[in-house]
């Protein structure tokens, strides 16, 4: 992202933001409430159009003019801040809808589940520890399980870049440890951007951290250097 700005009714939610994420990098974004973290993800995924700036993916693809679906199909998957799964569909069905490819209307009307598809779903069910719950409606899952299911849906899409907004909100300590492991292992094959409030969680990811404040980057570096940064301390303690 380069020099991106967006305002809502005159309020600059994102202000000349520039951010670069490398391939297979795991990046954490922290920042106080209202810093613009979610809005940043909205811009990357095409949900919100920026007023200025460029968003480049894979060195050359300009995302600004693309639709949400097109961007998703480029390989950018997103977990929303509020866990967003299909509550009236079973866990299995949720994953089935997320299967890579076959996005056209008629492909879905005449869709047939192949055994590879099923294998893939089983594999992801394993990864997100929901094997036993595959028949249940997603709406019946605990908050943490829904977060995992949503991450599982991202995995089904086989994306190159995962944008994960507050994955451990509402999770027990144990669950969030599992999530940290999961995200770290994902970063071996994917680029992952994680937005999180939970400092302990971010520390456990042990990676590069970007601090966002009032819509632009305040500091960037490893967790220790960021935490000792004078500006960051001011922002966090000043609030």
């Amino acid at each position, binding site marked *: 992202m380069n020099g991106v700005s967006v305002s809502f009714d005159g309020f600059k939610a994102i202000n000349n933001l520039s951010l670069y994420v490398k391939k297979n990098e795991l990046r954490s974004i922290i920042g106080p409430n209202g810093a613009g973290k979610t809005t940043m993800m909205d811009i990357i995924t095409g949900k919100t159009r920026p007023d200025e700036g460029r968003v480049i993916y894979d060195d050359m693809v300009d995302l600004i003019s693309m639709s949400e*679906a*097109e961007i998703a199909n480029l390989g950018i998957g997103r977990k929303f801040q509020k866990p*967003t799964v299909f509550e009236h569909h079973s866990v299995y069905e949720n994953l089935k809808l997320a299967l890579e490819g076959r*996005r056209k209307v008629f492909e879905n*009307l005449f869709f047939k589940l192949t055994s590879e598809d099923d294998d893939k779903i089983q594999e992801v069910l394993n990864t997100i520890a929901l094997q036993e719950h595959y028949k249940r409606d997603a709406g019946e899952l605990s908050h943490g399980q829904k977060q995992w299911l949503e991450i599982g849906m991202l995995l089904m*899409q086989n994306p190159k870049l995962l944008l994960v907004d507050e994955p451990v909100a509402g999770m027990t300590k144990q669950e969030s440890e599992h999530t940290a492991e999961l995200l770290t292992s994902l970063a071996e094959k994917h680029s992952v951007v994680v937005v999180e409030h939970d400092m302990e969680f971010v520390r456990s990811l042990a990676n590069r951290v970007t601090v966002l404040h009032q819509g632009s980057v305040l500091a960037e570096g490893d967790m220790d250097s960021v935490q000792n940064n004078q500006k960051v301390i001011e922002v966090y303690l000043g609030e």
Partner: protein
Amino acid sequence: MMKYKPLIFRLLENDKGGKYFIAILLLLMIVVPTCNLLIPESSVFYISTYVVTLLGKYLTYALLAISLDLVWGYLGILSLGHGAFFGLGGYAMGMYLMRQIGDRGVYGNPILPDFMVFLDYKELPWFWHGFDQFWLAMLMVFIVPGLLAFVFGWLAFRSRVTGVYLSIITQALTYALMLAFFRNDLGFGGNNGLTDFKEILGFDLQSDYTRNALFVCSAIAVALGYFICRFIVDSRLGSLITAIRDSEGRVRALGYRDEYIKLFVFVVSAMLAGVAGALYVPQVGIINPGEFSPINSIEMVIWVAMGGRGTLYGAALGAIVVNFAKTYFTAAAPEVWLFMLGGLFVVVTLFLPHGIIGAIKKISAMKSKKTKASVEAQKLNISN
């Protein structure tokens, strides 16, 4: 080796309500014509031609309700304008029936329908050409409502109009059509509409045989419409359709073009509604702009709510129950019908959120629980 099963059986496999529904339709297809044509009038089992036609009309409403349930119950779009598609299908059929009259009209003009002679038309308007051909008229029954739904949906879904706003513009759509069709210069007979039909495919519309044939055709159309919708909602597309209803943003983030899916469902639904209208017209013998009136479209919503949306057969049941009540009350006490309809709507929204079908399912679930409980209790007694 997988055992091959015809599609229809596969569709009904896990669809208990659907099995009953199709069985009832089949039964009606046999019983009604038999009781009308083969049983003497003196018998208690005799069904009059009037009733055959009335039931046929209910069936066209049932198809209309199924088409509405597809967009409302599954896709989550509350269309308050489905009367528009029904009416257009009806007009397409009406135009064919008008051209069939030929020179047997009051004015005896072999080409121009009576109302055109009366309004001093010199020649047939361009859009009436070809409607003397049954196949073309039938094509139009699909194309005209489908095209309107396509254009409307294209504009609405692409600009992300949803919820109440979308409902209001669907209502505006049918209202606009009503106003347009009321005009004499539009070329569809103004407020009198199209009527005085004589024949369909050369068969006398007044004959008992034709009436029964139309009834059977309506029943077949309902069954086919049901299977088409069931096929759609059982597919992965159907899963996506309810996913859009529940969480549109997630569907988009998965890379689906939700607007295309909505458009597909809306167009299919409009075409089914058009077919319902086309079957309705020869049975009631008239189509006029009143079919486009907003209240009609609202009534359709009540049918679906009453029967229970999101089941397809529930919508059909609702259409039949409400219209049965309507026929009865508009004859017995015409002035109370509208109040009853309003009351019905309130009762359904407050006490039957899932309609009649929902209530039946609940009761049978309670019963099976009870029997389970009593079996358990007996076991306890024995062990004691």
